[in-house]
C-alpha cells in the first residue's frame, strides 16, 4: 500500500490518537504550571528548609529520565498498592517532571524583575502578596513566556514516552497500526510528520515572543 493509500485508511485513527496526545500534554502542562509556580514561590520564600526541599525535588526530576519517572509511578506504585491507569500515570509523571523545569523558569523570571519595583510597591503600602500579584508577576511573565513555551513543546514531544507504559497516545497507536499493516516505516514517518505539524508552528510562536537578541 502506498503512503497515500495508507493515510486514507488510518488518518482518522491517527488524528484521534494525536488528540489524545494533546490532551495528555495539556493535562501534564496544567499540573506543571500550577506546581511549578508553587515551587518557585516556595523557593523564593527565603526559608532554608524550603529551599533545600524544593532543590532536592528539582534535582531528582531533572536528573532522572522521564521514562523512569513514569515506570515508578505506573509500575512501582502499583507494587505497593497505589494503582493509576497508564493515562493517569503519564499525566502525573510528565506533569511532575515539567513542574521541576517550569519552577526554575518562574524563579528566574521573578528574580529578573528589578528589586526597585518591589521596593516602590512596598513603599506605597502594598503587602508582599499584593506586590507579587500586581507588580512582580505581571512583569516576570514577559521574561518567562519563551522558556516556558519551549518546555511546553518539549512536553508535547515527551508524551511519546508515555507509549512505553501503554498510555493512549500517538506513538502507541502507531505501534498498534504497524503490527496491523506491516508498514512501520511509512506509519512512523506519517506520525513524525504529524508531530512536526503540531510542534513547528508552536516553536515559531515561541520564537516570536522571545526578546530580540
Amino acid at each position, binding site marked *: 500500500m502506498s503512503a497515500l493509500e495508507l493515510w486514507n485508511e488510518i488518518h482518522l485513527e491517527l488524528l484521534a490518537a494525536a488528540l489524545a496526545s494533546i490532551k495528555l500534554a495539556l493535562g501534564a502542562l496544567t499540573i506543571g504550571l500550577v506546581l511549578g509556580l508553587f515551587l518557585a514561590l516556595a523557593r523564593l520564600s527565603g526559608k532554608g528548609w524550603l529551599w533545600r526541599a524544593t532543590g532536592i525535588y528539582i534535582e531528582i526530576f531533572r536528573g532522572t529520565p522521564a521514562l523512569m519517572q513514569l515506570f515508578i509511578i505506573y509500575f512501582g506504585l502499583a507494587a505497593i498498592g497505589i494503582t493509576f491507569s497508564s493515562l493517569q500515570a503519564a499525566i502525573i509523571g510528565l506533569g511532575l517532571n515539567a513542574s521541576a523545569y517550569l519552577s526554575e523558569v518562574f524563579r528566574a523570571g521573578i528574580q529578573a524583575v528589578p528589586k526597585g*519595583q518591589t*521596593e*516602590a510597591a*512596598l*513603599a*506605597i*503600602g*502594598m503587602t*508582599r502578596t499584593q506586590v507579587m500579584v500586581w507588580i512582580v508577576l505581571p*512583569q516576570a511573565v514577559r521574561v518567562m513566556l519563551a522558556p516556558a513555551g519551549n518546555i511546553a513543546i518539549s512536553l508535547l514531544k515527551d508524551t511519546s514516552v508515555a507509549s512505553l507504559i501503554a498510555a493512549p497516545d500517538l506513538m502507541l497507536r502507531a505501534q498498534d497500526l504497524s503490527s496491523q499493516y506491516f508498514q512501520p516505516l511509512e506509519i512512523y514517518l506519517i506520525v513524525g510528520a504529524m508531530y512536526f505539524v503540531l510542534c513547528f508552528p508552536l516553536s515559531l510562536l515561541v520564537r516570536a515572543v522571545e526578546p530580540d537578541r
Partner: protein
Amino acid sequence: MGDVQPLVRIAGLTKAFGSHVVLDGIDLDVMPGQKLSLIGPSGSGKTTLLRCVNHLEQPTGGHVLIDGQPIGVKQRGGKFVPMSSTELARMRMSIGMVFQRFNLFPHLSALQNVMIGLVKVRRQPREEAREVAMSLLGKVGIAEKADAFPDSLSGGQQQRVAIARALAMRPKLMLFDEATSALDPELVGEVLGVMRQLATEGMTMIIVTHEMRFAESVSDQVVFMADGKIVEKGPPHQIFHEPRMERTRSFLRAIDSR
C-alpha cells in the same frame, strides 16, 4: 518648643552588613512640617538611614519611631517582636518615598501608577481613585501624559509621576532618596520645583541630595553625615556658611571645586 512630639524620632540607630558598619549610632528628630536635608559623601550611610525610616532596611540596633510608634517592630508583653508584613504595610501608607531610579511600574500607565495604591491599598473605588490621581498628575504638571507609559516619558516626567504616586497615599512624611541624581541636568529643575512646592505646602520631608543650593533654600535643618555618623547638624546657614567641623568644611570645599 512646647510638647509637640517629633514626627520621626531616630534613636541609637545602627546598621551593619556583616562586619561592615554603615550606620554607627544615629540620633535625630524631625518635627512635623520640618524639611530636613541629609548631605554627605557616598558611603556616608545617608541613603541607608533614609531607608531605615520606612523600614526598607532593617536596623541592627536602635529604633525608628513614626508619630510615636515604632516601625518594623511592635511591643508584645514588654518585648519587641517583628511587625507582621500587613502591619508594616499599613504604617508605610503614611510615608511616601521617591527613589533615585523612579521605579515606576512599567506595565502601567502614568495614571495607573498613581491609581494602583489608591485602589489596591486604600481600597477606593476606581472612579474616585481616577479623579484623585488625575488631580495629582495635574499638580505635578503632567496631566496631559496620564495615559503614557513610563518608557515614553523623560526622566523628569517619570520622577514627577513617582512623586504623584507617593502623594496619592496622603502621607504625613515624604522621603526623597537622591531624587534628581539620575536625571539629565536640564530636567533637574522641574523635579526640584515640585519638591519646593510640596515644602511650601507644609509637608514634612527628609531629603537625601547632592543639590546643595536646593538643600539650603528649602531646608529647616541640614544634617551632614560621614562614615555612618552625624558629623554636624544645624540650620542651613550654619552648615553651608559657618560650618563648625573641619570634616564639613572639607566636604563643602570638594563640592565647590567642580
